[in-house]
């Protein structure tokens, strides 16, 4: 299944989402809520983004499994 925009294969998008979700989840768990550095981050929002990426990955996996099972 090749997407028109961006020109990516569905498998590439699934892998990308998997890597992004893992990185975001680890960062969200390890990052401090506040600190003395310049690049402070909102931990709550980061956790939301990580959850969203993880959910998207699971949805894409469900689509992938459904496609295989239906023999499409």
């Amino acid at each position, binding site marked *: 299944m090749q997407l028109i925009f*961006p*020109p990516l294969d569905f498998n590439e998008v699934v892998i990308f989402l998997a890597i992004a979700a893992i990185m975001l989840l680890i960062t969200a768990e390890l990052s401090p809520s*506040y600190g*003395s550095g310049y690049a*402070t981050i909102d931990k709550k*929002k980061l956790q939301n983004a990580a959850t969203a990426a993880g959910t998207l990955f699971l949805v894409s996996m469900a689509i992938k499994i459904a496609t295989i099972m239906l023999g499409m």
Partner: protein
Amino acid sequence: MIDQKTSIGVKVAILSVIILGIVILAYSTYFISSFFAMIGFSILFWGVILLYVTPTNNSFIELLNTMVAPSIANIERILTEYNINQQGIYLSTENHNGLFNAFQISQNTESVLVFIPEIPNSMQQNNYRPKTDVNGGLYLTPPGQALFKVLEQRFGKSFSKVSQQQFTHKLPILLTKEFKLVENIEIEIKENITVTITKSILDQSCQETNNQPKTNKQIGCLLTSAIACAATKVVGKPIIIQSETYDPLSRTTKIQYGILESIKD
């Protein structure tokens, strides 16, 4: 603490990343290149995530500043009204039991007081005898008292039972690693106490006390006051803030505390 200049810089950097991602993605679509599509998509994705998770303000510090401001304004008002211009002397009530009788204060709530003498230059006298009545100056609760109490609780014992070596070793760990209030802090106790603080998130709070010049000069800002409270109990002698200099370029504050020889009551 994110100041306005840094905040704008971070925003510009993130928007540049997003624009770069869009350009690479458009390029990949035009030339139908999966390689560039993946790179462009990744850059765009992380740019959007960064834009989403970067806070525009630090609500924790804003809340802290709001809570500290009225107490400092009150001290400023008292100093101005009584026209007292001397440097504040931090006194541990554990070392000056007479203070308890004079003010009927609780040792648990106010174990350190700051005395501002009325008589000019009395702080320069090497032998200082604390007053046990309300004449001769003002006794105030230091602005850093609450922070000092939290630090003392984390130490697990009264600062009067902490050795100077423990103090210089453990307090920086507490402020940098546990509370994350400062990036780096060095404490040196010799004849005087020298404290060098780098990148404190309380800088903003201290700069706000610049609007209250008497309090800032005579008693010190929040962190300066909390360290003075702790130091006076550790050394067991009255402490004064001799100087406090701030370098905005390196975000470094250098504080010089003087140790006075007291005659115990």
